[in-house]
């Protein structure tokens, strides 16, 4: 499961990086494309302005010639506006090509030529106006200057044209890349979608399957558990019948055949009767135990443990008086639980202490209660460290036992003593453990031979939220 999860995460991360990369490249490309378009527009504008410039210069030249031939002043009109126009054209061009060193130098040269040309034109006109003949030498230089100017502008334009070609090419190339990037992006997204779908789907299917299997198992377990509980109950119930008859018949035999029976016969009948009586106790305890297991019909309610313990002590009042038992106990809290089971629990624990009291020593039973956190006994049971528990301790000064049996004594039918020494069926403490189970609590024992035994029981304190 960890492996598939890692695979899913890895494939997601991989594809996410791929998508981000592709998106970045495609963003860069579209940005470049805009730049190329701008550059193309820019170059086209340079070409247009330079064309306007040269045609303006031609107008000025034509105007000068017309005036020189006809002396008509109306030819001079475009001259005045043309000169300022030429200067503004040159300013615009200089601004447009300021990034390009060659073209910038070229514009500086053109400006110089234009300046000279205009100077020559003005000189020619001044000569004619003052009535002198045209200085042919100046005319000639002016013409040559104009020719050079034209060639210069041609070169400038052809340079710009080359730039335009390059830029148009770049723009077209960039634009042709865009669909490729977009296609790649779509494909990557599509693959990511398909692969994630496949992985998530197969994982979900697997989980659904195992969840189903788990549910079936739980159901099966519940069923077999219920059957087992039912079995224990019915078995011990039905075992009672023939047992009762064995006891009744052997009793009848003992009474009716008293005169006829030999001593051996009477003794044998005694043994039958005592065995049957013991069997009866076993069945009764077993029934009791299975009633603890089948506790679902009972309801949890507020149980005052003080009241319960006093009731139990009343049950033992004869023994307590006879053996002069010393009880030390502090106030016990109220818990939420099954009152009947609480009574059984306390009954079993106190009966245990009384049964295993040391001969010739006054039995002391100490009952203490503390509030503790789960972490104080986390070594003994799987428990939430922060949960609050009532820890109720029953300590006696009885015969005790070796601490290595501290867990074994809670197993059903497990006993540490021979039946001849101490009566018992080995169910009592199993019932106690079961009762604590029913209350989500715990019970532990610690003991020292001839020192005494302590039973610690833990009840979770219901949070008051």
């Amino acid at each position, binding site marked *: 499961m960890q492996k598939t999860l890692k695979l899913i995460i890895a494939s997601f991360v991989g594809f996410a990086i791929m998508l981000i990369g592709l998106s970045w490249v495609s963003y860069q490309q579209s940005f470049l494309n805009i730049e190329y378009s701008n550059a193309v527009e820019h170059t086209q504008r340079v070409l247009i302005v330079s064309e306007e410039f040269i045609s303006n210069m031609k107008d000025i030249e034509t105007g000068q010639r017309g005036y020189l031939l006809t002396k008509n002043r109306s030819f001079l009109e475009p001259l005045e506006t043309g000169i300022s126009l030429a200067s503004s054209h040159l300013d615009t061009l200089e601004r447009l090509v300021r990034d390009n060193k060659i073209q910038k130098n070229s514009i500086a040269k053109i400006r110089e030529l234009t300046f000279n040309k205009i100077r020559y034109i003005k000189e020619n006109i001044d000569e004619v106006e003052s009535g002198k003949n045209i200085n042919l030498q100046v005319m000639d230089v002016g013409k040559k200057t104009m020719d050079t100017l034209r060639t210069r502008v041609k070169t400038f334009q052809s340079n710009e044209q080359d730039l335009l070609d390059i830029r148009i090419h770049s723009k077209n190339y960039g634009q042709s890349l865009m669909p490729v990037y977009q296609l790649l992006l779509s494909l990557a997204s599509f693959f990511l979608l398909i692969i994630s779908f496949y992985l998530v789907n197969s994982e979900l299917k697997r989980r659904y399957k195992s969840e189903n299997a788990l549910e079936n198992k739980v159901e099966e377990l519940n069923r077999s558990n219920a059957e087992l509980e039912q079995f224990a109950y019915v078995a011990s119930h039905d075992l009672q019948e023939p047992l009762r008859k064995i006891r009744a018949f052997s009793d009848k035999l003992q009474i*009716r055949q008293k005169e006829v029976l030999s001593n051996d016969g009477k003794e044998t009948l005694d043994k039958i009767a005592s065995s049957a009586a013991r069997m009866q106790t076993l069945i009764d305890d077993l029934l009791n135990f299975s009633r603890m297991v089948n506790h679902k019909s009972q309801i949890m309610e507020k149980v005052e443990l003080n009241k319960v313990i006093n009731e139990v002590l009343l049950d033992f009042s004869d023994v307590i008086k006879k053996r002069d038992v010393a009880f030390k106990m502090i106030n016990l809290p109220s818990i939420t639980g099954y009152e009947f089971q609480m009574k059984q629990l306390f009954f079993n624990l106190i009966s245990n202490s009384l049964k295993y009291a040391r001969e010739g020593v006054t039995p002391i039973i100490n009952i203490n209660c503390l509030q503790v956190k789960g972490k104080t006994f986390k070594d003994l049971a799987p428990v939430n460290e922060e949960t609050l528990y009532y820890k109720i301790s029953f300590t006696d000064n009885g015969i005790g036992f070796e601490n290595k049996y501290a867990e074994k004594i809670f197993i059903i039918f497990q006993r540490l003593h021979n039946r001849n020494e101490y009566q018992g069926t080995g169910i009592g403490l199993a019932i106690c453990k079961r009762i604590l189970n029913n209350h989500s609590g715990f019970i532990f024992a610690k003991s020292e031979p001839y020192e005494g035994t302590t039973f610690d029981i833990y009840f979770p304190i219901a949070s008051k939220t």
Partner: protein
Amino acid sequence: MNKIPTILIADDDEDDRFLVKSAFDDCTVSCSIHYVENGVEVMKYLENEGAFDNTLKYTKPCLILLDLNMPKKDGREVLKEIKSNPKFKATPVVILTTSKAVEDVNLCYGLGANGYIVKPSSFTELANILKVLTTFWLNIVTLPPV
């Protein structure tokens, strides 16, 4: 009224019937005892139907001892029928059963049972109980005429 009183005992368990029969041997009270094995037979006896049509032999009992768990018709149903029938409801019915369940005890007294006895596991005790029971119902108390 010098008719011998009749006691009707309903129990499906042969061993129990045998034990009860033996225990009655010790009883000093003279009475005739009839045994039936299930609830259907109890009602047939009371109505003198079928095998019990001899009204001289199968006279109306002055005490019924009823087991609870019986085949065909159990003691609870029989008790309910007897106590809701005007003809028989005056007849005392004492439950003699193995069931110690509080639910059964409550149910039976609620239905009008006149006593509830849990079958003891010793014969001595059983004999003692039957002695006390017959003495009480046949000698001490006054019963309605049958």
